[in-house]
């Protein structure tokens, strides 16, 4: 599904990603952990085409296409989704209008007819139920006045509406209480199929109790310094990152 080879990226003159290699296959759940400032959010932003980052080296292939040559909107049309750590409020643009535009743009890209209003409404109803998002949110402006939990549920709702293939959840657990966390995680799990993949970026094991990863990576200083099974997350929870960083730095000497 996704192959990242030797990815380097800058913010301004500062190099943040220093050679990332990652392979995500259909149906897999990857967790990316790492201390603050290690480049986790940069990686997700680069993958979805945020204009604030410059790729200086490397190659990313998504569903057989050269991802880095595509604008952000086309990456989305192909099935890439980023659940924002801080979902943006868009005053004056209603959820319904926003969602309908997004879906029909994707359908246009795929050469499909726009969704009929009744099909759209049916779809909204089904996907809302998935994350227990109240109907009233559809008439409100995107994320405006939503609580932290509502914003995150809204992200998963949009992920469901767009039926995306690869979803990156950037610290979706931050600012969520236990109940909201469970609802969000359940939503992600229900959307999971053998054809879709998830990259979970998180600081904490807690989210991984709900969304079980197949593979866990540790990102440090712009590189993946450790890749292992789900047991790694538990070990990190217990021991922190220091021992891993030390191991990595020793091996670099």
């Amino acid at each position, binding site marked *: 599904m996704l192959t990242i080879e030797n990815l380097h990226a800058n913010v301004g003159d500062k190099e943040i990603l220093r050679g990332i290699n990652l392979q995500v296959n259909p149906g897999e759940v990857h967790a990316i952990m790492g201390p603050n400032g290690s480049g986790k959010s940069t990686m997700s932003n680069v993958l979805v085409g945020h204009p604030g980052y410059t790729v200086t080296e490397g190659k990313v292939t998504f569903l057989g296409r050269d991802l880095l040559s595509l*604008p952000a909107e086309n990456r989305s049309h192909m099935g890439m989704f*980023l659940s924002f750590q801080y979902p943006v409020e868009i005053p004056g643009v209603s959820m319904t209008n926003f969602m309908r535009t997004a879906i029909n743009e994707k359908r246009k890209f795929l050469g499909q007819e726009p969704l009929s209003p009744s099909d759209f409404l049916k779809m909204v109803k089904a996907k809302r139920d998935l994350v227990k998002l109240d109907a009233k949110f559809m008439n409100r402006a995107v994320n405006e006045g939503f609580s932290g939990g509502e914003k995150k549920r809204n992200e998963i709702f949009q992920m469901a509406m*767009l039926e995306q293939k690869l979803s990156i959840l950037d610290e979706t657990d931050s600012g969520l209480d236990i109940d909201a966390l469970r609802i969000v995680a359940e939503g992600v799990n229900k959307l999971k199929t053998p054809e879709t993949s998830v990259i979970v970026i998180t600081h904490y094991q807690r989210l991984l109790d709900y969304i079980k990863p197949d593979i866990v990576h540790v990102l440090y200083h712009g590189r993946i310094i450790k890749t292992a099974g789900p047991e790694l997350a538990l070990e990190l929870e217990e021991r922190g990152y220091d021992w891993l960083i030390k191991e990595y730095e020793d091996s670099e000497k």
Partner: protein
Amino acid sequence: MQTEKIYTDLFVQNRQMVDDGSCQVLNSQRQQALEALEQYGLPVHQEEYLHTDVSQWFQPDWGLNIQRHKIQADSVRIQHGTLPEGVVVETLEKASAQNPALVEKYYNRLADMKRPGIAAINAMFCQDGVFIYVPKNTVVEQPVQLVSLLQSPVSMMVNRRILVVLEQGASLSLVMTDHSGAQNPMLATQVTEVFVGAGATLRLYEMEETGVQNLRAAETFVLQQADSNVQMGCFTLTNGKTRNSTFVTLAEPGANLQLDGAVVTDRNQHVDNFTSVDHKAGNCTSSELYKYVLDDESTGNFYGKVLVRPDSQHTASAQTNRNICVSKKARMWTQPQLEIYADDVKCSHGATVGQLDEQALFYMRQRGIPYVEARMLLMQAFLNEVTDRVQVELLRERLHLLVEKRLRGELNQCQNCGACK
């Protein structure tokens, strides 16, 4: 005073012709208008006109077009529906023939000629105009639309005049649309006087859809009596250069005013909205919201003055002006002015000039909405806050559509509506 002299001379030389083409009520004000223009002049660079030199618009000698373009007697006609008994929608000439005392009582009473402006030159030259009168406690259910259509192969100056009187407890929705299909330069001055009686309700919307060669200098004077409610909305969709000056006096307690405006400009268009709200009595409210979206090398100005007089206690006033420059060369000036002399009041103002929200743009693109479309949605959303406040539903829907078309660049050419055929 060189520019003014072109017109004062023109008036003196052609006075007979000006008077002959018009009616007594209008003629009775011309001498005063001449003297006012000689004394106060056209606006040059006074503080209130810093970014719009209106006097320059008059520098080419526009001459007079009195005989060539006399307003037809049937040019005011009710096209759809009927009006309640006693309601008058008529030319000033006809109305003053039928009821001279009524027109005389109100004509040129609110328009302030004793300041640099266009009220004097308008009163000096205007040949006719529109008179709208709603008697006591009469409710006009259907909105009344007044269409100004400027179309001529000859460049010319027109001086429009509108007088609106709502007696006590009356209610009216008035939509004024300003159109021009002219490809050549045109100058329109427009003076609107509005009397709103005690407890009366007026919704007054103006929409400009003219061309790049059009110059519009409009002055609107509103007087509100006790417990009256006025909502005004001024929408500039396409234009050349525009100056709208709005003066509202809240003369008696309990009057409420909502004063809104939305502007879309591109190319080298210029729009200047000047508003002055005079809280002359206590317990009145005023709420102002103006928003601009400026593209290309267009320029905009907003000057909003709120005066709260010493005895106007319990005034509540809010003024907001928000602007987005979507290109690097677009310019916006904004000047909120609050003058407060009473101590028990609640007044606020805010003005911003900024760009589209980059975070929001990226968020939308991540969800598959292309950049151009995302920009469109953000600009529309920004302006909809103003259009959503319009209380005439059909107009609100129409404005939503027109704003969208305008932002997509589909409103710059003639829509072939058939109005000028």
